[in-house]
């Protein structure tokens, strides 16, 4: 077969050259695109979204192919190699909208990771993002609104929906599950064991990746970093707003969680205390009297003036799991290391694919004893994101700056050992330390008794379980069964939507029978959202008009009921409800790019008209034609 085709191409190549010179003008062809997504075993919702969207796009005359990939391969294609047309997947999101900066700023278009995987570049948009980054107070809220409105207009990606997160827990061995968010380390600390004998906390985890790799920087293997969050400490812990669940009606949320007071947004962790000192700017930077002065700062090449300093006092006497002391040096090292994992040894910088936005506003770090002073180029709430980074031990990661080498394989520039190591065993300073693992079966963590939360004097939630056993269980149905049969205490990842109805039904049945039942369904708020991403590096996805029409072919409301069985919130802005501007609030339909059709049924004529209006053409067979 191969030999035949080689022979054929050799024998016809002379002829082909002639033909090619005639048709050398690029032909206007039918638009044919590949939707990259996860397989149903990896993410059931993604593939269903991709299929539904694909079917609608086909109806609009686009040739669609769906490329299913495993969890790691998907992230590698999208986030590292940027090898895709469009993709459908889940973004880790955040509870505050600051992640939009690294997600969409053009200066990150060439980097790997969640920073601008779309290759979206737009100077006007950059200025909105910079304004959002530097503005404080009420101005910040305005800047965020402006960014979100621009995003809805430009559609660098199409935000689809925020799925509701449900988890099943057992309360007979450990209780107090609602104290911390179960997608973060705080969900697994401070639990109340009924007796001190209950030493093992058992989690059923529906993702096998933690058993293969525990590198906090490896973007292919991390979702929101739950397991690495237990192993590595950050300086502070972001507080989830007291708004309760995302699923509930907006009416019963607290009036406004937007509060930039330091104590309301972060609680202390490795950093015992911190203060923010705003720079006094006489020469009119952001803060002119009337608040309109920021327009002077719109030059994209302008050097950013520092806006203030964040001084953090490190908790004393902390150590890593291997006994090394954790000092201010490690913190300074981590900030430096995340911005370039080669540490300037190499001409080609290799920033970390995770936490990029957290360290971007840090211009300089100075240390004095237990105090660290971060010079920042962003407003207080943005600068404080640096408090969330995992503190890496300098004596281990300092040796991971070399470009990784694998025999016989060419390694891309900027692929340092730090980015690809599986980091086993991980040495952090977190409340749990790594014990052992078996690939695709389990990961066992032991309580780290030297952790500062174990001290009498520290009133922070500590690990109550001696052992945390994370059992890898590939599907929600079997994870539920483990909790029901008392083989696990919690499903640590959110349940897939298609089982939620069954779980809720079982819960209400149990409530009717007895109230001493140990099973409980926990709903948590989330910033994570499903979206459709364009590779804006290539035509026609670089064209905002094209992207807008695509966005109008997606019936988010219908997808939420078909794919998520209603357990999701359709969105026009990829942020939590409290940050969504009124102009982009969901009103039963998308406020900016309403669906061209009704009840999931595309109005093909309207879609064609929209594409034609955007400057595209159809052939006589109804195929959308584009010039690549």
């Amino acid at each position, binding site marked *: 077969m191969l030999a035949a085709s080689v022979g054929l191409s050799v024998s016809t190549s002379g002829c082909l050259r002639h033909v090619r010179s005639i048709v050398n003008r690029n032909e206007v062809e039918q638009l044919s695109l590949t939707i990259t997504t996860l397989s149903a075993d990896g993410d059931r919702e993604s593939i*269903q979204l991709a299929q539904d969207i694909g079917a609608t796009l086909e109806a609009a005359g686009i040739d669609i192919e769906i490329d299913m990939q495993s969890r790691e391969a998907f992230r590698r294609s999208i986030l590292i190699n940027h090898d895709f047309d469009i993709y459908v997947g889940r973004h880790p999101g955040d509870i505050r909208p600051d992640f939009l900066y690294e997600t969409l700023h053009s200066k990150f278009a060439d980097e790997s990771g969640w920073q601008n995987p779309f290759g979206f570049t737009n100077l006007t948009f950059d200025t909105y993002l910079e304004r959002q980054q530097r503005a404080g107070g009420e101005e910040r809220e305005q800047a965020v609104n402006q960014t979100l409105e621009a995003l809805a207009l430009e559609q660098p990606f199409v935000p689809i929906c925020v799925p509701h997160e449900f988890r099943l827990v057992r309360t007979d061995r450990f209780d107090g599950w609602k104290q911390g968010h179960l997608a973060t380390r705080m969900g697994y600390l401070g639990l109340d064991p009924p007796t001190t004998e209950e030493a093992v906390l058992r989690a059923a985890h529906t993702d096998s990746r933690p058993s293969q790799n525990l590198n906090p920087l490896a973007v292919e293997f991390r979702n929101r970093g739950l397991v690495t969050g237990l192993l590595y400490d950050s300086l502070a812990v972001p507080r989830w707003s007291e708004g309760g669940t995302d699923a509930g009606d907006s009416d019963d949320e607290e009036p406004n969680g937007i509060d930039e007071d330091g104590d309301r947004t972060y609680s202390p962790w490795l950093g015992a205390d911190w203060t923010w000192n705003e720079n006094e700017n006489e020469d009119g930077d952001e803060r002119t009297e009337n608040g309109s002065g920021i327009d002077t700062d719109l030059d994209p090449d302008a050097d950013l003036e520092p806006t203030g300093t964040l001084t953090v006092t490190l908790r004393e006497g902390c150590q890593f799991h291997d006994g090394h002391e954790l000092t201010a040096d490690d913190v300074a090292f981590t900030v430096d290391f995340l911005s370039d994992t080669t540490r300037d040894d190499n001409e080609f910088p290799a920033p970390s694919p995770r936490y990029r936005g957290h360290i971007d506003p840090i211009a300089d770090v100075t240390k004095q004893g237990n105090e660290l002073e971060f010079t920042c180029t962003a407003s207080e709430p943005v600068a404080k994101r640096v408090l969330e980074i995992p503190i890496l031990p300098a004596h281990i990661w300092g040796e991971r700056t070399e470009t990784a080498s694998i025999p016989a394989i060419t390694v891309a520039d900027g692929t340092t050992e730090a980015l690809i190591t599986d980091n086993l065993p991980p040495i952090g300073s977190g409340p749990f330390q790594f014990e052992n693992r078996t690939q695709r079966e389990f990961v066992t963590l032991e309580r780290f008794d030297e952790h500062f939360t174990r001290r009498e004097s520290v009133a922070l939630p500590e690990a109550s379980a001696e052992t945390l056993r994370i059992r890898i269980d590939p599907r929600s149905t079997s994870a539920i069964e483990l909790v029901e049969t008392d083989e696990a205490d919690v499903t640590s990842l959110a349940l897939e939507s298609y089982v939620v109805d069954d779980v809720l039904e079982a819960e209400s049945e149990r409530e009717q029978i007895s109230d001493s039942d140990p099973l409980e369904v926990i709903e948590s708020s989330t910033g994570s959202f499903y979206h459709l991403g364009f590779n804006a590096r290539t035509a026609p996805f670089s064209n905002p008009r094209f992207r807008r029409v695509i966005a109008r072919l997606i019936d988010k409301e219908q997808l939420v009921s078909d794919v998520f069985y209603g357990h999701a919130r359709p969105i026009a802005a990829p942020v939590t409800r409290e940050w969504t501007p009124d102009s982009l609030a969901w009103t039963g339909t998308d406020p900016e790019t309403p669906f061209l059709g009704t009840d999931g049924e595309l109005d093909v004529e309207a879609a064609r008209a929209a594409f034609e209006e955007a400057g595209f053409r159809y052939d006589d067979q109804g195929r959308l034609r584009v010039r690549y």
Partner: protein
Amino acid sequence: MLTQLLLQVVVAVSILLSVALAGVVGRDRLSLLREEWRSRLRTSAPAIALLLAILLLNRIMRQQGRSLSQDYGIHMTEVFYTIEGEFVLLFQAIASPEANTYFSISYVYGYVFLLIFPVVAYAARSKTIDFRRLLIAYSLNYAIGLVFYILFIAYGPRNVFVEELTQTMLYDNSPQYKYLTTEVNRNTNVFPSLHTSLSATVATFAYQTRSTYPRWFPIAVCLSISIMISTMYLGIHWGIDVLAGLALAGFCVSLSTYLVDRWSLTAILEQVRKRLHEYRDTVTTASQENS
């Protein structure tokens, strides 16, 4: 849970085996096997060693070959879908809880039984040729299947017809089976269907030996057809995988017939030894000449 489940499989298959052995093979052959197993083992040692080696390689490569496959494999899911469309959904016409149970049991327990039974049954024959052929056919199935799994990346229909197959999907109906099957299978290893090829191999052997084991032939055929249908019914394989599995079975059975007794291992060993001696002689003479 895995050990508990494994135990279940072991118990169920052992019961099936003992019943079938008594009914199909007969007491006489079994007692003869007990007397002669040593000599039969010796004649069949190369075939047994081959199968064990292939199974070991298979185990290693399923882990290691995965990344190789991810980097260089060809994605075929879309191709299969384009070729056969919604063919596997035809089996949804017979979907019912009873059918779910029947096909799940065929897929898990029936398959294990179907593979183990002929090994014992053919070992119980005084002529070891079918025993050795069977082991070689198994080895070929695994070896060729492994190469295909590395070359082609394809997801089974359950990843494409997510919604349609929810009712019959093996892992959702009986999540416990997931533990067993992930032990031996990855979700991208679908082309060809080894469940099909090995079942068809066993059925072909049953046909060829029907004069010795007349009762086994119908059992093997029914069971292997059930297993083939179950792979599609449960959303694990495409029709194409099953066809490829049948082709692979045909190929492996004929090749095993061709290979067995073609060479005598002792003769080969003898020849190798002779060659070695010759080589050593030339080397020593050469070195003597040099000095």
